[in-house]
């Protein structure tokens, strides 16, 4: 098969629906409403710096929490019996197939002031605790929605780790902390970088989770963008500038994670 022409419809499609739209976003970000060149949108975007930093901060917390929760779990999975592994991974994937709106909605019903958790505490005469509409609730929503995205790449890397390497380290007198530091973590690095990217990117750009669990008081950059395009604020130029800022944040995140891994197995990103 030495035919290249079969790719041409796709190349056209790519130019029309990926490159041109992104070009439009870039163009809109540097023009004002009448189409003249201006950098005011970026000035306005940086007026929202607190919101932008808040998004990055909450996404980092969610990513770190996911990593801490997922790492031991993925290791446990990779060391269990093969027949168990299949079932466990299935159990992790099952919630992923439920629409994330429903999963976020479920937390709404749990966290409300007269929701189930507060009712439970009410039995013991505690509370009610303010849980919904806090930044903690937003982070919880991110962790809950994207935890499987951290578990799966870690697990798929850890199953490939040769157990005799761990035994060798033990024979050579390593304790478990040294084994973790010198054998398991370096070998699972590709899974860590993939997992971090797959949790950080959707977390930093979400607008649904923050709206449902943060109740409008915890705005993220995603909410800002959504408001400029579909909200009352209608200002696609500012929205485009904010989108450019978001893309730069993601690029920096990718660059940072790639520093830690020399081999990039992008196909491992696909589940």
């Amino acid at each position, binding site marked *: 098969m030495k035919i290249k022409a079969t790719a041409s419809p796709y190349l056209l499609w790519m130019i029309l629906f990926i490159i041109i*739209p992104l070009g*439009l*976003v870039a163009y809109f970000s540097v023009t004002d409403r009448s189409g003249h060149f201006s950098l005011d949108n970026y000035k306005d975007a940086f007026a929202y710096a607190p919101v932008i930093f808040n998004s990055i901060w909450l996404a980092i917390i969610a990513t770190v929490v996911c990593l801490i929760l997922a790492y031991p779990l993925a290791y446990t999975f990779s060391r269990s019996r093969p027949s168990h592994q299949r079932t466990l991974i299935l159990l992790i994937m099952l919630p992923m197939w*439920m629409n994330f709106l429903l999963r976020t909605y*479920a937390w709404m019903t749990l966290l409300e002031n007269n929701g189930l958790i507060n009712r439970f505490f009410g039995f013991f005469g505690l509370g009610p605790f303010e849980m919904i509409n806090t930044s903690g609730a937003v982070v919880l929503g991110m962790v809950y929605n994207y*935890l499987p995205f951290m578990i799966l790449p870690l697990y798929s890397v850890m199953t490939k780790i040769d157990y005799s390497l761990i035994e060798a380290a033990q024979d050579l007198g390593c304790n478990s902390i040294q084994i973790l530091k010198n054998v398991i973590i370096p070998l699972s690095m590709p899974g860590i970088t993939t997992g971090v990217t797959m949790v950080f990117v959707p977390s930093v750009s979400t607008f649904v989770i923050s709206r449902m669990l943060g109740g409008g008081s915890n705005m993220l950059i995603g909410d800002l963008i959504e408001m400029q*395009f*579909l909200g009352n604020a209608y200002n696609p130029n500012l929205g485009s500038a904010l989108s450019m800022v978001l*893309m730069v944040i993601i690029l920096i995140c990718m660059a940072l994670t790639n520093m830690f891994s020399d081999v990039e197995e992008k196909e491992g990103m696909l589940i």
Partner: protein
Amino acid sequence: MSKWLSKGYTGLILTFLYAPIFVLILYSFNQSKSRGHWTGFSFRWYERLFHNDAILNAFITTLLVAVIASVIATVLGTAAAIGIHNMKKRSRTVVMNVTYLPVINPEIVMGVSLMLLFVLMGIKFGLLTLVLAHITFNLPYVILSVMPKLRQMDHYLFEAAMDLGCTPWQAFAKVTLPEIMPGVVTGFLMAFTFSLDDFNISYFVSGDKFQTLPILIYSMTRKRVSPEINALSAIIFIVVLLILILVNINDARLEKEQRKKEDALR
């Protein structure tokens, strides 16, 4: 000791993942509208759900968009993968990097960029814009599923078929396609499920007439109380569970057959 620890930890995480979903499902059988008071068992919300035209219409729209978009994306993407596979290294790298763009780029940015494009081109938001957007984000998944299969394939097979008098088209249909079929099917299924589930991109290109199920769910969650959502979640959960169990039984069966074959060869 450590065994119990890891079992307990696994149980904790699974509880964290499933408890909210089970609470939703439980309250779908609740008599009253409230989300906390249990007033008795009833199928009331399921009845309401099936008499809700908006939901049924959204369901049909969702299926329609997913089928059209994933079929077109599979055909386009498979053809593209073959073409990209035969490119020179440099141009292949460039094309693949652009292919990764929609995968890595935040969905909201893709949504608003397509929205800008459709507004400027003067295409009315509706079924067409939804399908175009869905094809766009499905293509990378199809290409990335087919590419590895092409790399594993012995390219002399195709040439042998040509030497034996096949036209290129026959050689493709008889040799290449069966070889890469698993990748094509995987790509199609991925495209289909992503289509069914997408909210972040559809939300920006759907307009107000055409609602997919996720968009409708979103508008329902904006209301204070809407127990039909619980009923809908329960149904979706059961359907997904059944599909995954079936797929898994099938996988396990295939693995067993594979092992039998290997044993027979020994």
